[in-house]
Each structure stands twice: as structure tokens, then as C-alpha cells.
């Protein structure tokens, strides 16, 4: 591939510098990648390569393929816990705000009602709870996924773009202890992957 020829050159290209930034040395191998036509095949292949002892696995697909997490041993998302924290924060904010403005900062007799009462804080409290948790959910979805980012080595895979269209890609990353370019590529092809390729970072 194009990269193999240019591998030894000393003068770093801008691309190399970018790789440095994202923690990948020049001409470092990122992974071995191969793709499938159907999600079931992907899941199936995933199980197989995992049984071969590979641990650093990933997949790329146009839609969430169910069962892939179990197949590749990817842990469940922790985002729920973060959101619960946000929700509690929302409740506290509302209660404190309403109590502070109504009782401490500027007490006013309005409609003969108490300065503070739980009943009339319910709607604002609820809304703030929802607001805080949804904003937090939104942000952490991307943060936990390491997004946004401009570049990813997997883009060097020739079928990478098809991952958002109709191909289902299996990735065995180079930092896998069992990783060896030739062998891994063979294994991947062995489980029926097409366009198997050693992708450089």
C-alpha cells in the first residue's frame, strides 16, 4: 500500500504530526480491519475472533448492531450514573433558587400565600431536573465516545466510509497483546471478513 513505501522517510508529513497529536507514531500499525455485508455475520465473526483470544476489538456499522457489545466484550455504558447526578443537581438548584429569592433575598407577600411552599416549586423543579439531565446526557454522550474529533486512523481503511452506508466492519486493534499483522489478518479472513487489510495509523 501507499503507506508502506513512504514508511521509512524521516521528514514528517502534516499527517504524521496529526497522528503524533492523537497518540499514534508515524507508520504505526493501527489495526487489522475487514468488513461484512450483514450485521449477523459481523456478530458471528466477532464471537469467533474473540474465542481466538483477541481482546482489543471494535466494530463499525451504519446502525447499532445488537449483540455486538457482548460479542466483542465491550462493557455497558456508564452514562446513566452521570445523568442521575445531574438530575439531583437540578432538583437542588431549583429548590435553593426559589427559597433564596422568596425568603432570603426579597420576601414579598403575594396573594396571601407563604413566602415559600413546596407546592408551587414543583413545576420549576421538575423542569430544571429535566433540563440539567438532558444537557448532561447530551454532552457526555460525545465526551465518553471521545468525540468530537477531526481524524481517526480507521479512516485509512479503504472501506471505512461504507461503514456509514451498508458495510459492517470488524476491527482488531494493534495494541492487542495477541496482535500480529499477518496472523491477525489471516484470522480475520478466516472468519469470513472481506477486504481484510492492515491499516496503518
Amino acid at each position, binding site marked *: 500500500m501507499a503507506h508502506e513505501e513512504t514508511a521509512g522517510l524521516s521528514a514528517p508529513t502534516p499527517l504524521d504530526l496529526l497522528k503524533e497529536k492523537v497518540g499514534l507514531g508515524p507508520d504505526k500499525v493501527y489495526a487489522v480491519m475487514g468488513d461484512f455485508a450483514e450485521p449477523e455475520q459481523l456478530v458471528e465473526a466477532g464471537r469467533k475472533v474473540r474465542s481466538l483470544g483477541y481482546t482489543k476489538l471494535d466494530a463499525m456499522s*451504519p446502525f447499532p448492531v445488537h449483540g455486538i457489545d457482548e460479542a466483542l466484550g465491550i462493557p455497558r455504558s456508564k452514562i446513566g450514573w452521570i*445523568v442521575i447526578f445531574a438530575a439531583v443537581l437540578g432538583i437542588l438548584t431549583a429548590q435553593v433558587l426559589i427559597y433564596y429569592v422568596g425568603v432570603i433575598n426579597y420576601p414579598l407577600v*403575594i396573594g396571601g*400565600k407563604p413566602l415559600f411552599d413546596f407546592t408551587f416549586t414543583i413545576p*420549576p423543579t421538575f*423542569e430544571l431536573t429535566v433540563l440539567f439531565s438532558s444537557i448532561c446526557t447530551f454532552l457526555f454522550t460525545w465526551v465518553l465516545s471521545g468525540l468530537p474529533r477531526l481524524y481517526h486512523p480507521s479512516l485509512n481503511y479503504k472501506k471505512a466510509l461504507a461503514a456509514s452506508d451498508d458495510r459492517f466492519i470488524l476491527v482488531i486493534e494493534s495494541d492487542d497483546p495477541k496482535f500480529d499483522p499477518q496472523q491477525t489478518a489471516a484470522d480475520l479472513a478466516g472468519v469470513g471478513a472481506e477486504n481484510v487489510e492492515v491499516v496503518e495509523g
Partner: protein
Amino acid sequence: MSSIVQQDPQLLEQNPPLVKGGVDYHDLSEKICSVVEPEVGQTPMKYWIVLAITASITLLLGAMLTYLVATGIGVWGNNKPVGWAWDITNFVFWIGIGHAGTLISAILFLFRQKWRTSINRSAEAMTLFAVMCAGIFPLFHTGRPWRAFYWLFPIPNTDINMWQNFRSPLIWDVFAVSTYFTVSLLFWFTGLVPDLATLRDRATTTIRQWVYGLLSLGWRGSARHWRHYEAAYLILAGISTPLVLSVHSVVSFDFATSVIPGWHTTIFPPYFVAGAIFSGFACVMTLLLIARWSLNLQDLITIKHLENMNKIILVTGSIVGYAYACEFFIAWYSGNIYERFTFLNRAFGPYWWAAWSMYTCNVFIPQLYWIKKMRTNLWVMFIISITTNIGMWFERFVIIATSLTRDFLPTSWGYFHPTWVDMCTFLGTIGLFLTLFLLFARFLPMIAISEVKHVRSYEKHAFKPGPLGAPAGKVH
């Protein structure tokens, strides 16, 4: 393809596939993106003509609001006793429409209603635009918007150093509506990201690559993304569901917590929510039918989708009808002379015509949907979707304005006449709504590509129980 043929024809009979025709993943991308991808220059002329019209109506809105702020609320027909008229009517009307989007994406998602996938994107967009239109009124109906726009939020201010009155339903409104808009926006954008990635990867021109590239945040469909993404989407759906129910409940508090006969009613929250879903679905229906026809999306927006929506319109419409009946019963049963008079006056007073057009459009006409022929006839559903929204506008007008015209003291009774400014302002918001929707339809995927592909993947294997438990293809 092949897998569909394998299906039991009988089962197929009961549950026709939601994604029709020989479409494969790639074809789906093709079909949906083809609307968005042509160069701007290649957009059909009729699109520009329609856009020009709606855009100029939007300008009219700008002009009206400028005139309003420069001159005073007096340019509207509002008076004493009718302090709120078309302004708040339009607000509630648009907010109501804004309910279908989140409802479809959130609640139907939780109920695993897969048929939602081909309509939720446009429904969510519609929500956003409707809420934008709605948001105009609470701000501009105030006598001093230049103060209201920040005195209504709990921001410490140095000019008078006061805070909001949290007993006021209007403040609850401010929280509810702004929260609702924010959450809907985040929800909508989250859903868009994978499709934006698709568009990015298919992009041919640099500008598209950049725009869609930045918007898609570097999404590459990695399993490590999807696991967070799905969790997040589930959570957003989870919190949007009570939210969507709360928003219109809070709006209904504007009236329910008051002392005015015709406003002071405990059934308002459920009644308003039902009405909101009712009008929202009707509006989605109108837009979908137009889109389906103009963009040839018959395969994606099938009669089945439409029929399901009509069923919901029928149900919610009947709930609204029940609410009307209930109001009359309570008014009579309460023995309160003011309540009784208000409801008699509503049906037989000077505003009888408004009340009866509301009963007709909201309660009587939708009953046609008991008949399957009607549920599945495109023309019928188009007309009903329109009349429903007319009826729902009148519902808000009847509740808000006509209750105010005649309350406790006969000596303070009055009547409301709209002015041309009232009318142009309302027209203007319709223009704004359509303009935004046209732009959306042209530059963003109207149908959630990844979700449709997802559904497609089940239907290929109708008899494998989907990972989510319910056998795919089974809708109910």
C-alpha cells in the same frame, strides 16, 4: 428481499412491512440522501417559488412585531376584559402542535413502535419550529418586551433588583417552554449525528464535507460510540416523555389556576395534553402527506404509518370530546351560577360560532376514522388533518377569549374584535414555520437513515426474535 418472500403470507397480510420495495441498506441511503444531495442550483424551481412565498410571509411577521413594539399592544384587538386573545391563543396552538414530535420520538420509542422511524425526524423538526413560533407570543404579548425578555428569567438584574414570582403559572411556563425547546433540540440533533455522518461520507464537494463533517462530530459508527449513543438516546426518550406531558400541563395551569369561570377547571392538564397530541399528530400528518407526495417517499411513509397516526388522532380527538362533555357536566353539577352561565354562554352566547366550529372539527369529524376506508384514504386524512388544526385553534380561542368576555360582573363584560395586525401576526408565524420546514427538508435528511436501516435489518429476518424481544415486523 429474499427473506421477505420467505415470510408467512398470512402474517404479512396482517403486518405489512414498514419499509416496502426492494430497498437494501445502500438503496435506503441513496433514496433518502438523494433529496438532500443535489447541488443547490439543481433544486427544482417550484421549491424556490414556495420558499419565496413563505419567506416573504415571514418578513410580514417581522414587520408586524416591529409595529407592535413601536406602538403598543393597542394595535391588537385586546381590551378590558379580554386581556389575552389571539396572542395567547396562537401560543397555545403552536405549543400544542409542538407536542407530536417529541411524543413520536420519545414515547413511541419507549413503546418500541418501530413504525415511528420514518416519521420521527420530520416530526421532531416540526416540534422545534412550532415551539419557535410559540415562543414569539409570550414575549411579544407583554406590554414591555424589552424588559420582559430578561425579567422573566431568574437572572440577577441591577436595574430593579427584584426576582420572579414562582407562584405564577407564567413563570412555570417560561421554565417549561424553554426546557422543552432545549431538550427537543438536543434530542433531534443527537438523532441526526449518524445520518450527518452518512452525508459526510457521501459528500462530493468540499463544502459539504466540511459542513456535514463538523456537524457529525467525527462520528464513525464505532461500537464504542453506539453503546453510549443508544444509552443516551434511551435516557433522552425517558426524560422527554414526562417532559412532553408536563409542558402542556403547565400551559394549562395558566388557566386552571386562575379564578375565571371557564378557566378555573381541574381537568385542564390531561385535556390540554390530549388536545396537544391531537393537533400535533394532525399537523405531522399534513406535512407528511405533502412530503410523501412531493418527494415520492411512498415506500418509506406507508399507508400503515398513516393509518396508525389516524388511530391516535381518533383516540385523542375522542378524549378531547369527552373533556368538553365533562366541562358542561361539571358546570351544571357544580351549581355555581357563574360556571353555568359561562358554559351556556360559550355554546349559545355571542361566540356560539367559534364554539360549534370547534366541536365539529375536533369531535364530530374525526369520528369518521372508525371506518378503515376513511383511515386509509389519503384525501380524507389530508382534509381531516387540516380541519383538526382549525378546530384546535378555535378550542384555544374559545377557552381563552370567550371566557374572558363575560365573567363575574356583567358591568365589565365586553367583546373582542381582532385587528389586521392580529391576523397578519398569526399568518406570519405560519410563514416562519413553513420556511424553516422547507429549509430543513432541503438540507437535512427528513428520515432517520440509521434507524430505518435498523428496522430493515429486522424485517429481513421477520421470524428471528429481534434483540429487543418483540418479534420484528410485529408492530403492536
